[in-house]
């Protein structure tokens, strides 16, 4: 069954006199356990689409149903709570809280959820070990490489036990080795723990690994391929 159902989604920005149709009528659905990439040139609307799915932005028309909840109907505070419990985020940069250690960054989201200390600590350790950072628990982001920081971000995104993880150009600032490494880890998590990943990217290395590639141009889906 699909965990994300998108119907006739539109998002229009009004910049001075001109209307920009960033997302212009998209219908899509995602199943649990997908490893999907949304690709397209700059300005094609892939980030807007990702923001809409993540509830960071609200659509002008159409609806997004996640696990039977139409998120367009949620109030501002409900949507924040919804994000906290249902969606994991990995951003391009500035992903971690610089004053917290790797361990504290991962724990932070479970603090927000109000999970118990014991559970927090165990899960943090497990997650950081699974992204290969079991020995860097107490390092601050500034002491980690870009690739390591993104792996902490993946661990943090999973810490809240979300329904799926949204990653907005996660490899944009990484070298090939770190990209390879990050993708391997995400793929492994997807394969072994059935975690759903949806990326936006224009990185060919990511596209190669993805099991499904959705191409967007001018706010519309132009192709949707499954490998």
């Amino acid at each position, binding site marked *: 069954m699909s965990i994300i159902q998108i119907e006739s989604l539109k998002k229009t920005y009004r910049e001075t006199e001109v209307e920009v149709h960033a997302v212009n009528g998209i219908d899509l659905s995602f199943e649990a356990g997908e490893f999907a990439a949304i690709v397209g040139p700059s300005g094609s609307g892939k*980030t807007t689409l990702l*923001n809409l799915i*993540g509830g*960071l*932005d609200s659509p002008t028309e159409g609806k997004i149903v996640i696990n039977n909840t139409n998120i367009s109907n949620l109030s501002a*505070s409900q949507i*924040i*709570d919804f*994000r*906290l*419990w249902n969606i994991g*985020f990995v*951003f*391009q*940069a*500035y*992903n971690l*809280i*610089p*004053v*917290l250690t790797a361990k*504290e960054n991962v*724990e*932070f*989201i479970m*603090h*927000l*959820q*109000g999970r118990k200390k014991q559970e927090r600590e165990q899960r943090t350790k497990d997650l950081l070990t699974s992204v290969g950072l079991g020995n860097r628990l107490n390092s601050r982001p500034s002491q980690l490489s870009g690739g390591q920081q993104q792996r902490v971000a993946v661990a*943090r*995104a999973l810490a*809240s036990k979300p329904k799926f993880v949204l990653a*907005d150009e996660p490899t944009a600032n990484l070298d090939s080795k770190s990209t390879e490494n990050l993708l391997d880890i995400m793929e492994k998590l997807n394969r072994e723990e059935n975690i759903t990943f949806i990326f936006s990217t224009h990185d060919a290395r990511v596209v190669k690994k993805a099991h499904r590639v959705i191409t967007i141009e001018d706010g519309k889906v132009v192709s949707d391929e499954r490998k």
Partner: protein
Amino acid sequence: MANINLQMAWRNIWRNKLRSSVVIAAITVGLFGGLAASGIMKGMVMDMIDNALENTVSHIQIHDEHFIDNSEVVFLMKNSNILVQKINSEPEVEAVCERTKAFGMASTASKALGVMINGIEPDKEKKVTKIYTKLTDSLSSYFTTEKKNRILISQKLADKLNAKVKSKIILTFQDYDGNLTGASFKVEGIFKTQNAMFDEQNVFVRKKDLDRLLNMPANTSHEIAVLLKDYHKTPEVVDKLKKITSYHIEAWNKIDPYLELTTSLTGFMLLIFMTVILLALGFAIVNTMLMVILERTKELGMIMAIGMNKRKVFIMIMQETTLLTLTGGILGILVSIIFITYFGKAGIDISGVAQGIEALGYSSVMYPQLSLTDYLQVIVMVLLTGIISSIFPTIRAIKMKPAEAVRMD
């Protein structure tokens, strides 16, 4: 949550060490300035009050009602010796003395001046007022001889009358029957208090000498002065004494309303001082926090995107602001406590720069002091400043749209 939030707030403060240090230093110096100035002012005022109570006013005074308005010899209190005994038996009372008082003229060969002649019983007076500790030179003594007609005058009066120890001074006044009378007195001692006005207007002689010259009836006096063990109990004792006697009873703050006015004014000045200082600091704090939020737009956007709600963001920024303010506040208060405690004992001598301050009744050595309540009041004010200063920056923070904040370059 509370724990990690506070940890985050503390670490965030030290992300920009220089900027936070400048703000903390500003708060520290500002608070120290305000507290030290208030402490010095309060010390001066309390010293003046102590002096006034010790040397002149005492805690409670009793007179015939008419004597208050018109200090004539006839308005005396009968059986005052019995009243003194009764007052003495009250547990709160430290000491009691009675006085005969007469307006008169003090004259020497060179000059004549109007003075209040105080007839005192030296042994009892010593327990109530401290004039005997204020003698200026080694030749002076405080009614040590039993010889008749000895007088104690102030340094100021001695200068004006061109008199010194062993000089003769003629006192002229009206007696109980309205006849003009007078006698020659020999200066036994010269004193100096911190109240120049009091010094200029008062001379002291033995009560029995003055009673005899005034023709006073036996066992009478014009004034009874009471010293309490604890002056805070003045109102209670006044109430008690009102049941014992129908004569007019006054507490120190009514005898000299200026004293009470000054006390309450000092408290008020501390409040004004601190409000102005903290208001100025508040603007600096708001400015700093706005910069902080601008710098952390992406980070805050990310935190909100992953699911931190507005209430928690609000609390996070407020904690950071308050912690920053409180750090400076506590440092400032600590420095002030050290300053005030040290100089409260050692004293600050300002006689070199503040001539004439004694003429106003203040001591030229200042002993700054502040009470625990004063400090607590300031801590609460600092805390409020922190919280109030955080409101504007926090509103800025929670208005951010996470989607835009995260992607901002």
